[in-house]
Every structure is written in structure tokens, then in C-alpha cells.
């Protein structure tokens, strides 16, 4: 019998595949028909095949626990997440607009700071930004691009509105799993791909390489591009090897590189020193160059910042790009888009109150029991207050923190993330989902077709991190024929 959908009969949630009346959304119609034609045992068998395929291929991610790095098989659910190509077009345009504005902001902050002078961004935001790098002041980079690779997290609330949750502008990861998910699904589950109008996404490594090459100094005839990894113990090492291999570039560690007398960067090879023109770094600013940042770092390259400032080598993402990667800056992105581009934002921010402003702070302090409060400079959920789940003592302690350092806090309503049917081994149940597309910005802009979809680990959980038992999905951007209207 066909797989049963359980727990979808509620108007309290928005499902990515099913409409409230239980019929599929237009982009998911063919997938839905296919699912109706097979039985649960078939699905269970495919699930086992997916797991086996991933294990044999060695697609892993690393979990750090009890002082040990454990490699685990990457979790992938058999039911894809579907995005209507018409909606995707709007998302893509919105992401390009957003990243253009953010890159303009970064260059502005390291140069004229017009955005502060003109009263758009309060100076306090810059002063408390932990990732502002004085070493970048006065620099203008090719194409005005600082955040060359960005991973932006999108979520949908129960009313169907899609929001940007955050922009990861430093060393975002996950794109390798997006690519592997598609590869695995094509191998193990080819039937639903037939005639479904699913857009391909395997051009990403080529686009990434083109973007990196376009950053090379002008004197490079045949640019040497490398990927700089912290090494095999890093949680994202699988992705580093995957991307280096896909692009056909050297995967290097800090100790493989050195800066010569001529301020050029070289890698140590069996042929002798070979000049490097572009470094795709997967190491945080702090560890890049012991001469300038953390002196105890063994992961970086002494003199790298010197070489970069002299224009002898390009670094992606640029050092200092993280200045725009915090929640306080995030809360101003709609204003930044209007200021730099003179356009209305195409993608919404989650409604955000900024404690820096007195009236917004007053609202936040009055509604702590229903809001989520986030510190500006933390990521990964550190130091957050989930108002509805906190006790009064915790809330009042937080209120004190806010009053002490208002510029460091923002607040948002608690969202009810949309869901997508997920196979739990027996039947299909709704699981909360987010989406991380990746945006490239160098000589040209590109957005991945779809992105990495992550689903929560249990039916009512909002946790989508794979390290906490969440799973992932292949993301299909589907072209819908014009005669199939929403609800038709």
C-alpha cells in the first residue's frame, strides 16, 4: 500500500509539499504521484540503499564529542524537498540583491564609512563588532567583493512567508552535502527524476573555480588556486577534500605555504616552491596569520596578510568579511539594501527588534515571554534566550543584560518552521526544515539551484543540526508547466 502521511492534518503548520487540503503543491505533483504508486516497504528498502550508498562512498561529517572526533555517515532522507521554480526565481534575485548590499557595506566599513556618516548604521554596531579587522582599512578589492562565498539560511513561517534567518559570510559549509545528496538520489532513486523538470545543480564546483580564478592578481597568466584547510581533524574536512577534488586544485595546510621575500605566497612541492595566486581559505580569520592575528596559531601562514594587502595573493572569503556576519548588522540589511541599491528588499528579514533603540527595547522588555533574544556576535545559538521556554528568573536576568549592553542584543518572534514529509522507517511524518543556498560573488554572481535542506531530528523538534541527529534532503527546484496553477 502507498506510504501513509501522518500528522499533516492540521492548519497550524505550513508544509512544503502538501496543501492544507492534503493535495500536493503543483511543483510536488509528480513526486506525489510517484510516492502513491509505491508501498512503504519499497521506501524502507530505498532508505537502506541510500544509507549503504553513503557509507560505501564515504560521505561523512565529523562530530566532536568527549574530546574525540567521530566520523559519522551523512544522514539523507529519501523524500526530496521541492521548491517551485517560480518562487526560486524570486529567492535567487533576493539573495543576489542581499549579497550585493552586504559586500558594498563591508567595503564601505573599511573605507569611507558613509553608511555610518549618513546615519543608516549606528556607530555602536561597528564598535562592538567582534570581526572588524583594522588591518583591512583602506583596501578596495576586485569587483568590490569581500564575501565571495556566502551560505544564507532561509526558513518559512506557518503563514508561508519565507525569511532570511542569517547570512554566513565567513567560512560557510554544507555545499558538498548538497551536491552529494543529489548524486546519491540520482543513483538510488532515479524514477521520480523522469520528466519531473528538476533543475541540475552540478555546475557549482565549476562556478566556484571560475569565481576564484577571477580574483587572481593581474600578473598571473595561469592562476594557481588552492584550498586552505585546517587539516584532517576539522569538522568540515570531508567538504574540503570534496571541493578540492571537484575543482582539481591542491588541498593545502598552512605549513605547505610560505611567504617569500617578494611578498608572494608559495607552496612547498617536490619540484620546489610554486607560486599561489588565490587561496580559498576554510580557516577563520583568527588563525590565518600568526604575524597579525593569534600568534599561537599553527594553522595559518606567517606573513599572509602582508602578501594579501600587497595584492600578491587573493583570499576568499576576504579577511575581515565577517564584520557583516553578526545579528546586529543582519537587523539592518533591509535599510542597507535601500541605502546602497535604492531598491526595495526582495527577501524579508525575520521581524527584528533592536534593543539599541529605546522604543524597540521597551517593547522587547515587555514581551520577553514570547520573543527569542539573540546576542549580536554569537553564532550557533550561543547565549540565546528562548522567551516562551524560560522561567521568570532567567528572563529578568536577561533583561538586566539587555539594559547593560543594549547594542549587543536583538529580539525576534518565535517562528513555527514549515515542514516537509520525511520517512521515519514506517510512514511519512512532517519534520521542520530550513534551506541554505550558497551565493558566489566575484566577477559574476551565482546562486546555487536550491541549496542544502536540513530537517529536524524528531517530529516536533526544531533542531535541524546534523550533529544533533537531524537529517538532510535533496532539494529539487522544479519547473511547473504554466497550466498547473496553485490549487489547480
Amino acid at each position: 500500500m502507498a506510504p501513509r502521511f501522518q500528522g499533516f492534518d492540521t492548519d497550524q503548520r505550513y508544509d512544503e509539499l502538501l496543501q492544507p487540503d492534503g493535495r500536493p503543491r503543483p511543483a510536488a505533483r509528480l513526486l506525489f504521484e510517484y510516492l502513491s504508486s509505491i508501498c512503504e516497504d519499497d521506501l524502507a528498502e530505498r532508505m537502506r540503499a541510500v544509507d549503504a550508498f553513503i557509507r560505501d562512498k564515504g560521505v561523512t561529517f565529523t562530530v566532536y564529542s568527549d574530546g574525540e572526533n567521530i566520523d559519522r555517515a551523512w544522514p539523507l532522507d529519501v523524500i526530496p524537498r521541492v521548491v517551485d521554480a517560480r518562487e526560486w526565481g524570486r529567492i535567487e534575485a533576493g539573495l543576489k540583491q542581499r549579497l550585493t548590499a552586504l559586500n558594498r557595506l563591508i567595503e564601505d566599513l573599511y573605507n569611507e564609512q558613509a553608511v555610518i556618516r549618513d546615519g543608516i548604521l549606528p556607530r555602536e554596531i561597528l564598535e562592538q563588532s567582534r570581526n572588524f579587522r583594522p588591518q583591512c582599512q583602506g583596501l578596495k578589492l576586485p569587483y568590490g567583493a569581500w564575501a565571495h562565498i556566502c551560505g544564507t539560511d532561509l526558513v518559512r513561517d506557518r503563514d508561508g512567508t519565507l525569511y532570511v534567518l542569517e547570512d554566513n559570510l565567513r567560512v560557510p559549509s554544507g555545499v558538498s552535502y548538497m551536491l552529494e545528496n543529489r548524486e546519491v538520489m540520482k543513483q538510488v532513486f532515479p524514477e521520480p527524476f523522469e520528466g519531473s523538470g528538476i533543475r541540475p545543480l552540478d555546475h557549482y564546483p565549476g562556478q566556484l573555480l571560475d569565481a576564484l580564478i577571477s580574483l587572481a592578481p593581474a600578473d598571473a597568466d595561469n592562476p594557481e588556486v588552492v584550498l586552505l584547510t585546517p587539516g584532517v581533524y576539522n569538522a568540515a574536512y570531508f567538504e574540503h577534500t570534496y571541493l578540492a577534488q571537484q575543482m582539481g586544485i591542491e588541498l593545502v595546510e598552512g605549513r605547505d605555504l610560505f611567504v617569500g621575500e617578494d611578498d608572494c605566497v608559495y607552496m612547498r612541492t617536490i619540484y620546489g616552491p610554486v607560486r599561489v595566486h588565490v587561496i580559498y581559505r576554510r580557516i577563520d580569520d583568527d588563525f590565518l596569520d600568526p604575524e597579525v592575528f593569534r600568534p599561537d596559531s599553527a594553522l595559518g601562514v606567517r606573513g599572509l596578510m602582508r602578501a594579501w594587502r600587497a595584492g600578491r595573493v587573493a583570499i576568499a572569503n576576504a579577511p575581515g568579511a565577517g564584520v557583516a556576519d553578526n545579528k546586529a548588522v543582519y537587523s539592518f540589511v533591509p535599510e542597507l539594501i535601500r541605502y546602497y541599491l535604492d531598491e526595495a528588499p526582495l527577501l524579508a528579514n525575520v521581524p527584528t527588534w533592536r534593543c539599541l533603540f529605546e522604543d524597540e527595547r521597551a517593547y522587547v522588555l515587555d514581551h520577553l515571554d514570547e520573543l527569542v533574544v539573540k546576542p549580536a556576535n554569537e553564532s550557533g545559538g550561543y547565549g540565546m534566550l528562548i522567551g516562551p521556554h524560560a522561567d521568570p528568573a532567567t528572563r529578568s536576568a536577561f533583561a538586566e543584560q539587555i539594559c547593560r549592553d543594549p547594542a549587543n542584543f536583538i529580539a525576534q518572534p518565535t517562528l513555527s518552521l514549515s515542514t516537509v514529509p520525511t520517512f521515519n522507517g514506517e510512514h511519512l511524518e512532517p519534520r521542520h526544515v530550513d534551506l541554505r543556498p550558497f551565493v558566489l560573488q566575484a566577477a559574476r554572481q551565482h546562486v546555487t539551484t536550491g541549496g542544502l535542506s536540513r530537517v529536524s531530528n524528531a517530529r516536533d523538534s526544531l533542531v535541524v543540526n546534523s550533529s544533533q541527529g537531524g537529517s538532510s534532503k535533496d532539494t529539487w527546484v522544479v519547473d511547473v508547466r504554466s497550466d498547473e496553477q496553485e490549487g489547480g
Partner: protein
Amino acid sequence: MLSRLAEHVYWMARYLERAENTARLISTGTHLALDQPHAVRIDWRALIEVLGGPEAAAHCDPNLTPERAAMVQLIPASEHPSSIHAAIARVRENARTVRDLLPDELRERINQLYFHTHRGAGTAVERAHRFDYLRGVIEYAQGISGVIEGTLSRGPTYQFLMLGRHLERADMTTRTIDVRAATLPRDEDDHPPTWDDAVWMNMLRYLGGYSQFRQQRGPGIQGPAVVDFLLRDDRFPRSVRFCTQRMERALEELPHPEAPCRLLAAAERRATAPVEVPLDAGALHRRLDALQVDLSQVHDSLGETYFSDG
């Protein structure tokens, strides 16, 4: 090719060769102990000296039988650098770092070898399980060599594997002869040698060259002929000369090989000098010692040329 990766590849081959040789030596020793309990006393302490030097021999637990003490050192002890388990763990570590340079099949087999040694190390000290365990190590290692031969392009990765394998193998052969040479009668000894064909025969068995020696050199096994075979034969793959020639071929495929080639030529000259009859223990020991120094200079030169400072 990055210098660091070349170095990892080289060490991977060295440790794989070391593990396989250790397994072969223990396996042959155990066989002999079973076959000829009275005629031949297996010198387990000498075996440990070959594999780990005198300091390893000094670490042996005096409360155990010599055989058991040797096994505890040579099979499971991950803290003892000459143990099979430690060597295989390093093979795997190096292979992980250079994963992109190796065919998938090779990585799978290395993992299988690691799990085999990991699972069986504890019980292999007992004779009952030892053969299975050692045979597994040898077979996996041979399988890995087969995949290298059959699927790996003859680029720098392959050449560094060859350098690592043959340097380790030549070194092991000199050590094995050296332990035997240490028990040769010395000039000042005026008693007749207690040394006989059986011991030389066992040594050939250790190195897997017994039948081939027989085929090439005919009946009768005398010390000088065996030493000549193990140092100078250019067809037996474990002779020092064969190994140095193989390394020379690898270097020819690599950039600026002049310095290591020069040192390799010196080692080869020493290996191929005629063997004196009758054997003189002191002279033979000095020659083997010098040969080991030659090989370690080749190793250092590889480091300076390709690994450390690019």
C-alpha cells in the same frame, strides 16, 4: 605534488613494508619453533633486536617466556613503534591524509588491514591465533601492493611509494643479516663454530628467499653464499642491491634527483662489494653498519630534496 603529501606517501609505504616484514619474521620464527623444537632454538631476543634495536630487547618483560615477551612487544603494543599494530595505525593515518592521491580500492584495503590488526592484536600473542592473524597481515599487505602495481599511475605518488618500500626493505635485510652475523665466531674465538647450515637456511626462510636461493645457487647452504645472495643478487626482490636499483629507477622519474642518487650509488657500491670467504664477524658487522648509515643518509637526502623545505 605537495612536499607534505609526498612525505606521507613515502612513510605510508615504509610502515606497510615494516608491518609485513615483522609479520613474516614472526611467522617464520613460530613455524620453526613448532617444527624443530629440539634441533633449533629460536632466538626471540635476536628477532626483537632486528625489529626494534637493542632498546626494544631491553624492554622485554623478564617474567614471561622469551617467545611470549617478544610477541607482546611485536604484535599489539601500540606504544612500541616496531609493533605491527603501531605500524598499521601509521599506515592508515598517512593514507587518510593523502586520500585524494590513492585509488578508492587502495583506501578500502588499508582500512580492512587496519581493522584486521585492530581486532586480532590481542589474541595473536597466543600461538593458536597467531598464524591466522599474521597470514591476514601479509595477505592484506600483498593485496595492497597488488592494487598499487595494478591500478596506480606511474606518477610521483607511485615513485614515492617505491622509495619508501625499498628503503625499508633494504634496511630490514641488513638488520636480519646483522643479527645472524653477531653470532658468527670471532677471530679471537679458538673454538670451532657452533654455526651451521640450519641457521642460514632459517634466515633465508625469514626473508622468503629459501627456494629461490636453492634454485639459483644449487645445493649446500654456506654463510658466505647466503650473505652474497642477500646483499648482491640483482634478481631477488629483497636483496639490498635489488632495492637500491629499484630506488634509483624511482628517482629517475622525479625532479632534481642528483643528491639522493649520489648517496644511493654509494650504498649500492658498498652492497655489491665482494663478500669475503670465510666470513669475518667483525668485518661483516662493520659493513652492515656502514650500509645502514648509507641508507639513512639516502633517507635524509630524500627529506631535504623533496619533503622538508620544498
